[in-house]
């Protein structure tokens, strides 16, 4: 361990965003136990800065009586729950009350959003465009629960965020996006403010070598307005009152187009992939998409007797999501490798709220880099000890956040092994391959009550959200 420290670069607590500049190898040579102090120092600096400049954190800290952070434990009451990123009333979206939404978002960032020009803005998409122009990079969830959450990231974080993505790709596939552009295919939208779409267009276009080398299934951007209003519009349509919502006609047209497109989605994906098979036969490519997209395409290809042949060095970058796919093969990865003839499948664990990606190692584990302080909680929200292997609800402090508070508690249940004995040779706490949603099973296997507590379910919402 001492040797690793000697070889390793000094990690400056003031600039966690630059720790990766020496490459992931240097960071994975470090034991988390040896960098706890510098992580804490970085967290203290973040707290000192944001507790006076991020209004939401200021208020939470005051309420929890936290005035200083002398240990990671001191900062636990300050972890933002997913609700904080969507604590605005839904009616603000429905009425497209952009000034109030903007003021609400302003409480989550150090940037003075009152300076954003929102004059004449009546759509969420346009508001988010204006925020981008102002220097923000706000991404939102896909709204599967009926309400969008907004992560108040900005362009200040962009270089570090991008490096984290590229280094994760290099770690898990061996391909360096900075020096080795590859034709990239993604079976979805070209962009949009939904976080995944935003990330992919921000990172994939440069990594592919420019927009002409980035091939997406749809040429349009996913609409935040449609995502956020889908449920409401469906209800209004059921009542025959869609026209009374006072929506921009352009939005109604966009919705129609999306519905049509959605119905054709399966065929579109197929057609697009087959085109890819022919035009790029024998060439080197990078394939993206969810597990489900890849499995579905492989299945329809097999059914039609088609077999792709890509050039040497091709690879797949994929992550999460069997959504909309029934009877996924147990060994979906082997299935996909076999069909596409691509052995190099890169994966990482990440989420909208954290910039640090955790790439998958040769042993199938996701190693966490030093710029993320990982935490696990049990059902009673007690911190689990950092030793051995623990399973619980995943939370973290994202030390790369420079304009917003990076403490967040997720809805994912993961297992973390703290022992740094992974056969892959990388150090750092590692997340095991099984990642599930954390939720309580209080009612047993099959609880039934007459009181309405189930989440509202809406097929249209699911359908639209399923695009990502």
């Amino acid at each position, binding site marked *: 361990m001492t040797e690793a420290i000697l070889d390793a670069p000094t990690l400056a607590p003031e600039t966690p965003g630059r720790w990766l500049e020496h490459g992931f190898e240097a960071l994975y040579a470090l034991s988390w136990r040896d960098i706890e102090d510098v992580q804490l120092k970085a967290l203290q600096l973040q707290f000192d800065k944001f507790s006076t400049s991020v209004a939401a954190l200021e208020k939470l800290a005051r309420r929890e009586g936290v005035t200083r952070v002398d240990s990671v434990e001191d900062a636990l009451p300050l972890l933002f729950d997913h609700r904080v990123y969507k604590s605005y009333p839904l009616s603000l979206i429905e009425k497209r009350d952009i000034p109030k939404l903007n003021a609400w978002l302003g409480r989550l960032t150090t940037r003075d959003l009152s300076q954003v020009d929102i004059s004449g803005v009546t759509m969420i998409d346009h508001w988010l465009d204006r925020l981008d122009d102002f220097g923000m990079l706000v991404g939102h969830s896909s709204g599967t629960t009926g309400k969008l959450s907004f992560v108040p990231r900005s362009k200040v974080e962009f270089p570090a965020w991008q490096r984290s993505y590229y280094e994760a790709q290099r770690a898990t596939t061996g391909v360096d996006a900075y020096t080795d552009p590859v034709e990239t295919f993604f079976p979805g939208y070209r962009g949009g403010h939904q976080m995944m779409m935003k990330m992919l267009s921000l990172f994939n276009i440069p990594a592919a070598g420019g927009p002409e080398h980035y091939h997406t299934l749809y040429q349009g951007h996913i609409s935040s307005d449609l995502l956020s209003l889908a449920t409401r519009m469906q209800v209004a349509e059921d009542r025959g009152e869609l026209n009374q919502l006072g929506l921009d006609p352009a939005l109604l047209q966009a919705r129609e187009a999306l519905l049509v497109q959605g119905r054709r989605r399966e065929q579109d994906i197929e057609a697009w992939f087959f085109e890819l098979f022919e035009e790029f036969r024998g060439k080197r490519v990078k394939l993206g998409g969810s597990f489900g997209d890849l499995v579905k395409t492989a299945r329809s290809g097999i059914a039609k007797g088609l077999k792709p042949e890509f050039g040497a060095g091709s690879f797949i970058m994929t992550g999460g999501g069997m959504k909309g796919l029934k009877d996924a093969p147990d060994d979906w990865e082997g299935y996909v490798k076999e069909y596409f003839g691509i052995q190099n499948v890169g994966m990482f664990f990440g989420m909208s709220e954290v910039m640090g990606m955790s790439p998958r190692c040769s042993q199938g584990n996701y190693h966490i880099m030093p710029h993320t302080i990982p935490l696990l909680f049990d059902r009673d929200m007690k911190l689990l000890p950092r030793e051995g292997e623990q399973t619980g609800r995943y939370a973290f402090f994202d030390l790369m956040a420079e304009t917003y508070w990076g403490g967040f508690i997720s809805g994912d249940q993961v297992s973390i092994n703290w022992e740094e004995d992974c056969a892959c040779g990388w150090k750092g706490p590692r997340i095991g391959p099984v990642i599930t949603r954390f939720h309580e099973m209080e009612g*047993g296997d099959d609880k039934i009550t007459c009181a309405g507590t189930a989440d509202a379910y809406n097929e249209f919402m699911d359908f639209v959200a399923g695009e990502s």
Partner: protein
Amino acid sequence: MSELRDIPIIARGRILMPADGDAVEFKGRGGSSFRSPDPHKHIQDLVLGNAAHLADLNATKMADIIEFLAEAGKRLRLEDNPYLQESFTLALQAGGLAEPILRGVYDQLPYMFDGQSLTAQAEQTIGIPYLDGWVPAPAPHENVRVRAVGTRQLHITAGNVPVVAALTIVRGALTKSDILIKSPSNDPLTANAIARTLIELDASNPVVRHIAVAYWKGGDEFMDSQIIRTSRIDKITAWGGMSSVKHIQKFLSPGIDLTALNPKYSMSMIGAEALESEAAMEEAATGVAVIAGFFNQTACANTRVVYVESDIDEDSIEKLAAFGRKIVTAFGELPPVISTPFEKPNEDLAAELEAAALEDDFYHVEGDTLGGGVVISKFEDRVDFYDQLNNRVVNIVPVSNLREVAKWCDDTTQTVGIYPEAIRDELLDTFSLVGVQRMVSLSGSDPMQIFHDMHTLPPGMPHDGIEPLRRNVRWVIDQRPASDHTQMMSIAAE
């Protein structure tokens, strides 16, 4: 904590215990585990494949059925019924309801089997003559007769309040029907306890010979596909969420009638008068505390959102906050048989309240998920987590005109508390049309009286806007040749 409890299948008078080679385990609420005979091996014990076998119950007079139920009712007393005691203990461990409330609920059981009340129920819903025989149509159509005939019913029951099990057994018997109860994992014992009490009383009674009780996991496609067939089931009553209905929906075919008693979000409407005097505010707050707090807000009829006729300027919101504080105080003063404080916070809801409290431009929060609380919207809309309101927490929503509340109503809006009575008539018809199923009064200031009145309905009243008893029988027509006399009369009339 992880004690393994054996739960039998009740199969028409027989008690089938789990045994080696015939057992499945499942998890209940609060970490408890159960063992049951494998339902996959007992399909024939659970269903009545031949509807003609209902003949015994069909031939039994209503008076005899009711006499039997009433006799059973005398044995459904918690203090001397070991089966109920076991079910009670388990329900208590599960932690949904505190001891005094749960005791109050179990104490209701004998009354649910009261002979007079059952007679009135059968008479006023279906009519006993229709159940016991063929009833001629009014003259001159005496040649046409109608009878209400029993059916084969599957009941997928809710477990949040144990009376559902009793209600199901009573309704089955009053419709002279064969019932199969699929128990919920959060109350796997109450239906068993009642059925076993009936078996001890007389295992050969036709009522007993048409009760089956089992647990299987929701979404068990093998069970659903075996049971939900027109050859085996005529009617299904499904309590609970969309998921429980969705599972069975794919097996439904014409010939099987589904009654979906789906989840409800009940509410209250409070007129501006409630905020005009200290006394009115207190009276309304007590009423809201009772309707939101009874059974610790686990029932469908519990108010979760309170719409108050109010402006949204600062002074008005301050008034609402004062009203909210009175509600929280009133929660604390409810008699323990109605409602009790919680021992553990509701983590998810508490997190919602915390997030809301941080947004003081939009919300104001009083109280918590232990003693009860309110979250006040400072604009005309309910909180986005309204479907998570529990633990005696309500959302107070100001509206300029109570009629506007209709836009938030649909078939899931079951019970509406009203204060003061003066606003009722103006709202009644509109709200009936948009889905509301019952309007009750919050007036009176005496929690026990309000609670009692709220729960006192004449026998045979509609349930969730429908009449389950009438719906669960088959209405059969016996049309004989018209008499010469009738024919003559009709010819003469031409």
